[in-house]
């Protein structure tokens, strides 16, 4: 298939010069945003079908990338098919912009698409993330791309994708319910930590990727579009805005988020953000905000709410956001169909 007939008459009088004259060879001749247009079409078609069938895992021909499989190749293919020259791109891993792999992904996007990068959630058009949803509320002109290691929630109960595809086809999720029930019988509560199975738009059971349970309520009835992209397992799926996303739970054993009783961020004092434990050199264990960019804002202004950038008031993003000043986070809202039970596990 010879390309379109752009004819150039050779100026140089030797083959060496001619090849140089005809344009650089090798790496410097990158396509815009690295992917050739054919691959972008493949990813884009899958994204659109994913949005049209919320929660359904759409297969696509995932392209090998200069990034190892399992390190965000799905996410980067989705981001690079979205990003335009005037978009601003934020990349976080474990909630941190400065994390190694986030730096590597930003470098690839910058080198091949010349995209402006930012660490401010409220300033980004596209955010690629691994294992976290930002603390600040995302709006309807932003897109969150989540990296996905395991695409199917049923993988916990059956290794075979072929069998699981049939279960999804017929909305047959009995095995997952049995698994959760056995959890409760054996441990007294559901022991799933991250990748908590959620029902999307009442039809498809979905794996929200290894985000903590803390972030799962943010998916429900949000303003923003969530795209889940798996490179190695070659699937793309989506949660459109204003779509019901309900974590599986029983009436009496409601969905519990992580709790950090009597703890607050050592740096900014937050008690309403996801914290991780940090051990100092002198052996003290303390907690700090995981979303580093928001923590930086809280260090400047401890009272800044998560919806500071919106004109709407009242936060409906994520669990346990106290009204100003109150100490213990109140019960989690945003969990569809569940009476706001007293936040469990506090009797610790």
């Amino acid at each position, binding site marked *: 298939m*010879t*390309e379109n*007939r752009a*004819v*150039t*008459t*050779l100026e*140089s*009088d*030797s*083959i*060496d010069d*001619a*090849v140089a004259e*005809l*344009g650089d*060879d*090798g790496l410097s001749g990158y396509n815009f945003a690295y992917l050739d247009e054919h691959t972008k079409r493949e990813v884009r078609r899958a994204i659109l079908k994913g949005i049209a069938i919320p929660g359904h895992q759409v297969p696509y021909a995932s392209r090998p990338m200069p990034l190892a499989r399992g390190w965000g190749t799905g996410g980067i293919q989705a981001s690079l098919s979205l990003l335009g020259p005037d978009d601003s791109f934020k990349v976080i891993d474990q909630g941190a912009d400065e994390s190694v792999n986030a730096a590597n992904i930003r470098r690839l996007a910058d080198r091949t698409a010349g995209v402006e990068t930012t660490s401010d959630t409220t300033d980004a058009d596209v955010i690629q993330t691994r294992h976290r949803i930002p603390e600040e509320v995302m709006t309807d002109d932003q897109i969150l791309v989540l990296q996905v290691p395991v695409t199917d929630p049923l993988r916990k109960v059956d290794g075979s994708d072929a069998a699981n595809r049939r279960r999804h086809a017929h909305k047959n999720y009995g095995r997952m319910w049995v698994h959760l029930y056995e959890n409760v019988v054996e441990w007294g509560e559901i022991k799933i930590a991250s990748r908590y199975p959620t029902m999307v738009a009442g039809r498809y059971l979905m794996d929200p990727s290894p985000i903590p349970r803390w972030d799962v309520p943010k998916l429900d009835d949000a303003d923003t579009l969530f795209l889940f992209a798996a490179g190695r397992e070659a699937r793309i799926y989506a949660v459109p805005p204003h779509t019901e996303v309900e974590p599986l739970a029983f009436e009496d054993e409601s969905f519990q988020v992580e709790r950090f009783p009597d703890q607050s961020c050592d740096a900014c004092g937050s008690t309403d953000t996801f914290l991780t434990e940090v051990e100092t050199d002198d052996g003290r264990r303390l907690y700090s905000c995981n979303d580093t960019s928001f923590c930086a804002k809280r260090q400047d202004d401890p009272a800044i709410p998560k919806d500071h950038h919106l004109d709407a008031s009242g936060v409906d993003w994520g669990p346990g956001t106290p009204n100003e000043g109150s100490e213990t986070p109140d019960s989690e809202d945003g969990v569809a169909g569940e009476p706001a039970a007293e936040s469990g596990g506090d009797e610790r």
Partner: protein
Amino acid sequence: MVDPHDRTERFELIAACEPSALVAHADEVVEDTTVEVLQVPTPQLVMQRVVEPVHHQPFNLGEVVVTAAEVALDGEQGFAMVPGKAEKPALSGAVVDAAIESGHPAAEAMIETLVTDATRREQTQREQWARRKRTAVDFDEMEDHT
């Protein structure tokens, strides 16, 4: 015997020819003749398809890197494709293909090179095969030794 005037055979001779010989000939042509480049030499992929002998099932074995180029010389088109990432040999091959097709003054020397190159390769192949035949074995003979 090889026939460099047959377009397909010439393509095969150019594809297998010693790259430096191609570049040398093409340098001569580019010096004194206007050459239009229709397809810039770029590395591309050929997906090797194989029909396996058991069930005659075709399958895709894997891709082979080649470099293709196309030029025009006084209105006569030339096309070449060579193995690997080899922009200079590909462009040179296209020039040689067009030069021979259009009867460029340097065509005779080019044909000479293609023929001698082919003969050399054939000789190497025949020696290679003879060496391999020296390792043909009749298993009974093997059993006597062990």
